[in-house]
């Protein structure tokens, strides 16, 4: 009985997940010996190269962009999760589904659709232009319209780092909303009521009661957004500019166009170790919290 249950999944994980990862790990210690040949010489050169300033700079940039996008996600998602979990019973499933539905589309399509929104002649700029024209019309009689300039200058929102951040937020927003919602849903409402009853304002109750209690959900959401964002290459490829190369793009290039698989392997594992570091940090923080909580 037991083996019937364990073996299929276990073997699959072993053969098609752990073994490939192990192969990459080994390849990071290899050297190119021809267009398709790689010899494992157990050299550390690849890791040395991967840790050069140029790549470290890329890791740093990827880290920052992912962190910024995660922060924006968190700020946007919290009120949404709050709204859905405190909604009346019958509206909840509908609202939840509305949040999840965009998630039900291909990553590529979601990323691609942002292009029409962000480009110079895209919707965001059209919208801003509309507002600009409206503002001008209102301010004209007051003679203040010069403040807005002669012509509407569209924001350059595409093919740069801003677009990448936008893109990440757009694609991964549901991943932040769902864990937040799950935690808020289980929150004991009477705790907030107690806080209000004891004299705290809504904001104070929110900061002192709701947020600390929602902390596990916040951490889950951060992990679910930050890690994929760290390794993204599609979003930066489609929406980013020439200086928006992230670590994911570099890795992809080593395995495809540049054919420098050992370097790519080293970079991949560095990314993986970074991911583990983030997870370990979370576990450590959770452990501290459990001891002091």
């Amino acid at each position: 009985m037991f083996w019937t249950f364990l073996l299929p999944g276990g073997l699959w994980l072993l053969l098609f997940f752990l073994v490939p990862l192990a192969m990459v790990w080994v390849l990071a210690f290899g050297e190119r010996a021809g267009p398709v040949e790689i010899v494992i010489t157990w050299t550390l050169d690849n890791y040395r190269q991967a840790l050069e300033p140029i790549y470290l700079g890329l890791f740093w940039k990827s880290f920052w962009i992912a962190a910024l996008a995660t922060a924006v996600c968190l700020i946007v998602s919290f009120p949404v999760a709050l709204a859905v979990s405190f909604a009346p019973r019958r509206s909840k499933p509908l609202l939840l589904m509305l949040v999840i539905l965009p998630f039900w589309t291909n990553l590529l399509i979601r990323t691609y659709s942002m292009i029409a929104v962000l480009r110079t002649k895209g919707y965001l700029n059209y919208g801003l232009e509309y507002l600009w024209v409206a503002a001008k019309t209102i301010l004209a009689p007051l003679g203040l319209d010069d403040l807005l300039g002669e012509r509407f200058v569209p924001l350059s929102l595409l093919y740069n780092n801003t677009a990448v951040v936008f893109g990440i937020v757009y694609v991964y927003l549901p991943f932040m909303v769902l864990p937040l919602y799950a935690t808020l849903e289980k929150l004991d409402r009477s705790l907030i009521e107690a806080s209000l009853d004891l004299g705290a304002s809504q904001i104070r109750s929110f900061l002192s009661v709701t947020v600390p209690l929602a902390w596990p959900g916040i951490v889950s959401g951060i992990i679910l957004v930050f890690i994929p964002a760290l390794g993204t290459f599609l979003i930066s490829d489609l929406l980013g500019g020439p200086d928006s190369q992230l670590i994911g793009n570099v890795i992809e290039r080593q395995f495809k166009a540049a054919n420098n698989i050992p370097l790519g392997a080293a970079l991949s594992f560095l990314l993986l170790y970074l991911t583990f570091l983030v997870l370990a940090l979370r576990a450590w923080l959770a452990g501290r919290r459990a001891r002091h909580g």
Partner: protein
Amino acid sequence: MAERRGAPGPLEYTRRLWLRAWLAATFLFLYAPIVILVIFSFNDSRRNIVWRGFTTKYYAKAIANASLIEAFTNSLIVAFISTVVSTILGTLLAMALWRFRFPGKAAVEGANALPIVIPEICMGVSLLVFFSRIGLMGGISWPVSLTPVVIGHIAFSFPFVAVVVRARLEGFDRSLEEASKDLGASEWQTLRHVLIPFMKPGIVAGALLAMTLSLDDFVITFFTSGPETITFPIKIYSMVRFGATPEVNAASTVLIAITLLLTVIAMRLQTPVREEETR
């Protein structure tokens, strides 16, 4: 029950204006790009920047595009196989982890969590390396050429299924199992008549998740598609790089429609079960 009018209560956050505005703005942000994409699939303009008129000719073009149709079909095949196998593997693993204690259990649980947590690109490149090494990338004809894609999809989907089914199993009242045995049922009969009916909502949710993950995937598909394998996301990707045309929008809209249809079907599949239980 009449809705209570009047000022929102202290905890009725959702009735507050600013929260409603925020929610509306977020939904606008989430849906506008997709809606625009769908609308612009009907745009009668090659460069597709300004609206020039309604047409369905790009849909016709898309349907006539043999490689696009092939890509589409391939992705559907992959999704189907991946869903079936992932659901089975995930359910079995969830049961093993829920039911038994064994040496190395923590390691298996960890290994199960890894595909969910690591950056997809790491998994993608490792699968590329693996399949290259065993000679399944390139130089193979259809349908075997789809094998790396299917295997890759299963590898990253079934841990999700396992998590979902495991969560459902955690809520199982063990005394139901004991009652079944007490009444004379064997281990297998108990599984069939008591445990599996209980797991059903979890299995269905897991299957849904597996199908969505497969249809929506780009990264793993990208790395496991050899030069002869044409899958939908890869095809669209190359079309996008050539320049956005309404044809891309048309193809995307069709995929969105299919995914939506599947979701609705899945929701319908779930509700009759609920109705039965309350009759």
